[in-house]
């Protein structure tokens, strides 16, 4: 099914068909981008969970100091901040989204 679709899109986008084909391609790209944003939104919490769970966390437990604080605290707050930034960027992309 999806294959047929790509073929169809490709045909419509043949050069010489004019601006309509390009527009269609562009809207297709946008739809793909939106899907990617949704996929990322679905994956983000799991990435976060893995980063703050024991196996990975154990790497940072040795008593090393960074910027005056213990490494593991620094690491946890950094992961947290990164998650927030990612969520912020995704939220901006997903905000106007209607359910497909």
């Amino acid at each position, binding site marked *: *099914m999806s294959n*047929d*679709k790509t073929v*169809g899109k490709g*045909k*419509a986008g043949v050069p010489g068909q004019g601006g309509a084909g390009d527009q269609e391609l562009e809207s297709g790209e946008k739809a793909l981008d939106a899907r990617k944003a*949704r996929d990322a*939104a*679905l994956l*983000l*919490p*799991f990435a*976060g*969970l893995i980063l*703050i*769970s*024991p196996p990975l*966390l*154990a790497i940072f*437990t040795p*008593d090393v100091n960074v910027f*005056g*604080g*213990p490494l*593991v*605290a620094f690491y*946890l*707050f950094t992961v*947290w*901040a990164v*998650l*927030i*930034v*990612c*969520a*912020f960027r*995704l*939220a*901006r992309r*997903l*905000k106007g989204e209607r*359910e497909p």
Partner: protein
Amino acid sequence: MTLSANLIVIVSLGYVVLLFALAWYVDHTTASGGGAWLRSPIIYTLSLSVYCTAWTFYGAVGSAARNGLEFLTIYFGPTLVFVGWWWFIRKIVRIGRTHRITSIADMISSRYGKSGPLAMMATIVAVVAATPYIALQLQSVTLSFEAIVGGEPGQDAQIAFWTAAGMAAFTILFGTRSLDENERHFGVVAAIAAEAVVKLTALIAIGLLAIFGVSGGFSGILAAPASDLPPLDQVAGPRWMTLLFLSAAAIICLPRQFHVTVVENSSERHLATASWMFPLYLFLISIFVLPIAAAGMISLPSDANPDLFVLTLPLTMGQEELTILAYIGGFSSATSMVIVSTIALSTMVSNHIVAPLSMWLMPVRGHERTGDVLRVLLTTRRIAIVLILGLGYFYFLVSGGSGALASIGLIAFCGVAQFLPALVAGIFWRGATHAGAIWGLVAGFAIWMYTLFLPSFDGAFLLSQATLDEGLWGIGALKPQALAGLEGVDPLVHATVWSLGINTAILVGVSLVTRQSPLERLQSTLFVDVFGSAPAQAMGVVQRSATRGDLFLLAQRTLGLEPALALFRSAARAQGKSGDFPDPSPAFISRLEQELAGSVGAASAHAMMRKTVSGETISTSELMDIADEAAQLVRASQALEAKSLEAERTAEQLRAANERLRALDVLKDEFLSQVSHELRTPMTSICSFAEILRNDPALDDETRQRFAQVIQGESERLTRLLDEILDLNFLEEEGRSIPLTRIDAEDVIESAAEIALAAADRPVRLEWGRRAGSAFVMANADRLSQVFINLISNGIKHNPGPDIEIRIESRIDGDAYLVAVEDNGPGVPEDIRERVFEKFFRGGVSGGAGLGLPISRGILQAFGGTLGLTERASVGASHRGARFVVRLPLSPAP
């Protein structure tokens, strides 16, 4: 240093008055249609921060001082859930908005067939689980008050009592003003949002003080020996993961959290903002916890309660204003939690416990009055608020207010997490059944009570100290904190694993062996496919009938007269009726039930409706339709895609057909001009010769004779040309309808060769090659003969040489009959070999109109054969010659 008790009481009261004023003002503004800013995503996010209670404000620092980074898990769980809003919260909010869900108990009961018993059970779990949590808030207010004024412990009960009473007053005033259409309380939300700002500001201020104000400053903290710092190395392990899990569950399952996230939500878009802003709030509120804990451990005496560092740190440093700010911050956290919790819990109690009970006790027919149900519910909510706060107060008294704040909070987390299996299964698994949900919940709740809640009283309530140490009836395997001999595990981990493990196992196991009722099946489909199904269609699935009068009576008793009238009017308008009363169609009854559910919960609304309507059935076929709807949607979109592909293909074909038509049009024009050109040449000569004959009487007879001959010859040529054109036309139009008979083609060749040679104007040598003997084909003898004559005469006509030779051979090739006609002429150059079959193509010298070969080919095609042209195999040094090959399918003997 201490501050005077009066000052603190005045400050507290002043703060409370401000909150009252804010809530009153906002309620007032929204009632008159204003206050759009209250529906902004920022207010929504701030109201979510009711998650950060006194436990966060005081307890996080205490937890950090005792257990290091463990306090972070309480904020990581919600962060992950909100960052992953697309998975879970979004779906829950959509369901909540679609089905007018009023509480988490309502959500669960609505999903499992609008079950009254399940709603009641969930309410009991929620109230019991919230009790220690509310006690925690009372305890923290009491502790903080004592810490500031330096009072003796005897005052505990008194302070806690007045705190509880004040909170009850606020909640009753602003939380139960009406059975709001959507259970939204703008005044309360505004107050909560304001408190969120207050507590964040206070904590940040103390954090800055801890970093820059403590003797030695930041470097002083860093230089302190490790024994004076929070233990930061205990991060991994089962307790870490358990806390992550519990806090993630709590952010949805806590009744107050469900209330602010789902029930008070006014737009799904707010979730997108909250998905990063709420984690950011948590981040900001946590970032100063470690510095405060470290500063407290360094600068305060070692016997100081770490739960109160936030307060005692500024107090010992003589920072009076900051101390009061910290106190207000803690007070804010405690009050906002208690207010929202009691609103949520009292709604559950009145909707799921009192409403079903009062339905049995309700006055019989003839004694109903407008709004009586409404009044009963409002009153019971107020009573419930007092009772719930009373329970919290009771827990505080019995548990002696001794436990660390964090551990009390975690008891509540584990309790409400019992909702999680039923909730998750309810929105993702269509097969989860009512029996599975209720038994799982009951079992999980019982285990939680036995392993965590009751032991928290240290033998002072229900479970004796002996039972705690020896197990129930002295059986070691039943020891509350070591079930089945699971010793040496952290009590929280132990209770979580057992209660949630068995809860989930029973939910799944029982669901697999029990069946859903039709209503349950309907609800499960609507919940699981909330993004796919159209709610409007579901409205007509439940078939039932009632009189308008009964329906209106029910509506006005529950909603009040005005809202009921408005609802009926709008429904009548939607049905296109002029009066106030709509037809009591199944769809309208369902809509009314949904409106009632928004006030009293799905289970009670359904039960009330049941008493009013008759003949409730669920049409199985429509149920199937709905169940199928998601699949249908997928199918529809696939069909659409297929259709568009088909349309594309059709367009392609149309384009091709159009091009072919254009080409044919060009051909037709060419043909016409060719024909007129061909006609014109003989016509011109006929005309001019005829003119000479008429105008020139002096011509001698011989010349006249010659001219007349020319005219005759040209006329014959014209006739031939017209015949050929007609022929061609005939072949193209009706080639398929030439009557075919079974004839011997060999005979036809011989007679055709004779005729062709007789007509030749030059001597021709005919040579017969190998012959097939006899070959029967389905053809028309005259037409076939025409083809051969044409081929032979072409060979003669186009041969300029003096010594003309025609060679004919034939043979049978499989089921085809092949005839080759060769000449010793100049042959046809390869590049024009296919063009000789085009109309009016003439290979150089004059002759016919150039229609012979196209006609021949057309005739053969009508017989199912072909006509090809190749080069003759070499016969001499210079003469190559052309070789026409006729191929006809043999006709089998009849």
